[in-house]
């Protein structure tokens, strides 16, 4: 196995061809995931999380312009033909989606859909071998009565069961990378925990790289090794998950953490970040967060800060895109907020 990271995204920019012209959905995104590690990607809806993941999978429509680089173990995926990408999808990198209710084909049985995932990449397997593997996969994702479930159609299963089936399909060919795009958002809270546990178990057993998109900071804190916070199409802070959550340097990260309801706080109101995420066509100049930022200064409206290592001995390995990363939140270095 080469030393190249499992997945490496370098300076990724995605432009959408819309009726009002080319709009930038994502700009200059950088991150990488190592084998057996989990990257949590956090941000509001519309910040570019999902589109970045679709770009990695090569699932964006052809009129979307992608520049930069996406490397799967050193192999460039940007510009690869659809046929080649299809050979990688479901085989080396798999993806599960937000809404298990609509992600399974309603007219195909669970068995048909799992077997499809197997046979696309393994044409030699006999029908019987594929069935046995399908059964194993349902057992792997802890679905009770797998024999019976195989014959059922998606509408006969609950949301949690469907997401398990989606995970089984994703695991069909033992992928190196699993992308989970808000896998629990559409599920009941109790089921959410089960699905997250399942993902964590699979990732450990199979030494997969896992990318978990979520806007649930608690989930990310529990499962991820690293976290990347995205805002308006850019990564604004990235680093080891405990470090970033313990001592955020980007005001947006700080705001996200502050907005979490806390059990020991007695305020009547939740703390929210003022304003809302700018739309694609109305992104502000300079730092994209400055109109909503309590610490914004003149320079913030002019220059877009680069994603740079934060000079703080307490947070090694953290990068943030803020002109005042070191000073905005912590006037006294090291003393905490």
């Amino acid at each position: 196995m080469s030393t190249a990271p499992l997945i490496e995204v370098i300076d990724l920019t995605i432009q959408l061809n819309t009726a009002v012209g080319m709009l930038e959905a994502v700009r200059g995104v950088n991150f990488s995931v190592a084998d057996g590690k989990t990257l949590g990607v956090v941000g509001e809806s519309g910040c570019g999380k999902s589109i970045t993941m679709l770009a990695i999978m090569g699932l964006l429509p052809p009129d979307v312009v992608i520049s930069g680089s996406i490397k799967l173990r050193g192999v460039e995926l940007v510009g690869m033909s659809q046929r080649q990408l299809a050979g990688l999808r479901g085989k080396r990198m798999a993806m599960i989606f937000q809404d298990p209710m609509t992600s399974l084909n309603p007219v195909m049985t669970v068995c048909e859909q799992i077997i499809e995932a197997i046979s696309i990449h393994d044409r030699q397997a006999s029908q019987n071998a594929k069935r046995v593997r399908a059964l194993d996969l349902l057992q792997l994702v802890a679905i009770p009565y797998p024999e019976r479930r195989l014959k059922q159609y998606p509408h006969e299963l609950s949301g949690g069961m469907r997401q398990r089936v989606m995970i089984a399909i994703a695991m069909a060919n033992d992928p190196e990378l699993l992308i989970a795009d808000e896998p629990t958002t559409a599920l009941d809270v109790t089921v959410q925990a089960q699905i997250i546990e399942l993902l964590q178990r699979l990732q450990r057993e199979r030494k997969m790289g896992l990318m978990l998109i979520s806007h649930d900071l608690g989930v990310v804190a529990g499962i991820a090794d690293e976290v990347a916070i995205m805002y308006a199409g850019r990564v604004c802070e990235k680093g080891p998950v405990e470090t970033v959550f313990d001592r955020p340097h980007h005001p947006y990260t700080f705001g996200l953490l502050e907005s979490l309801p806390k059990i020991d706080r007695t305020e009547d109101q939740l703390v929210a970040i003022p304003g809302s995420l700018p739309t694609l066509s109305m992104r502000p100049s300079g730092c994209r967060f400055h109109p909503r930022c309590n610490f914004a200064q003149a320079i913030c409206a002019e220059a877009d800060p680069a994603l740079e290592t934060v000079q703080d001995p307490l947070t090694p390995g953290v990068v943030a895109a803020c002109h005042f990363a070191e000073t905005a939140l912590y006037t006294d270095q090291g003393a905490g907020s």
Partner: protein
Amino acid sequence: MTRFIIRRLISIPLLLLGIVSIAFLISHNTQGDPLASIVSERQMDNPEVVAAAKARWGLDKSLPEQYVLYLRNLITGDLGTSFRTKQGVGKDILERLPATLELVIAAMILGVGSGIVLGVLAARFRNKPIDHAARLWALTGSSTPVFWSGLILLYIFSVVLGWLPGPGRLDPRSVPPEFMTGFLTIDTLLAGDFAAFGDALHHLILPALVLGWTVMGIVSRLVRGSMLDVLSQDYIVAARARGAGELRVLLNHALRNALVPTLTIIGFTFAYLITGAVLTETIFSWPGIGSYAVEAARNLDYPAIIGVTIVGGTAFLLSNLATDIAYAFADPRIRLS
């Protein structure tokens, strides 16, 4: 499912009774005198002849009496005697219905088959030249009057090029096969007369094309629309994410779902054409039920009018039932609920 079918089958005679009653009422209350086609013009002034004719055809009885008499005969399978052909309406219909069925089935095979192919291509290459060409071709098909396209095609292929025979079901010089199914293509084969089979098939091509072209227009537009709808569903992205290639996505995932709404229009069109193919039948001297219906209406031939109405009504009821059954097979969500 079986119970559903049985219940529907039981309801068919009741619905037919309603259809017969309405047809009876309307036809007997139209302005016009059926005697005009029974008694010659010169004899119309002769009261004895008129009275005898009225008595012969039961027109001297009151409307309720005629209605009861008709229903009583209908239960025994007697559809009455045509004023015009002077033979049993049942016999008339049996002679002519197979010709129409043969034509309509051939047209449906051509029209539905090519319509699905064209619709899938148009959806796959949306807003590309193929889509525009398909749209033009479909619109031409469904908006060109059959009496025009039929004549033009006859002129080109029969008169100018001489590739296909003129109107009719068989070469007028040949001996028709013994009546078994009434489908000439089948009867000639049963008789082992392959030359006549080829002749019957050649005669079938043009009218089936003309009629099928209209069907293709409707089906292709509908398939395109529902394909586009299905292609934007989450499970299509999910199928791509597991490595499904373009063809597999289009046919296994999209088309299977897109055909469900198309079944309705296929069933409806089939039933409609049973009595609605009259223009094609007229152009191609096709002795079918449509032209029989027109003759019946022109002569106020009550028994024939009601007989044809029963045929048309039955066609609609049966094809509705067939559509519902096909629906259940195509969509498991309907099957089980």
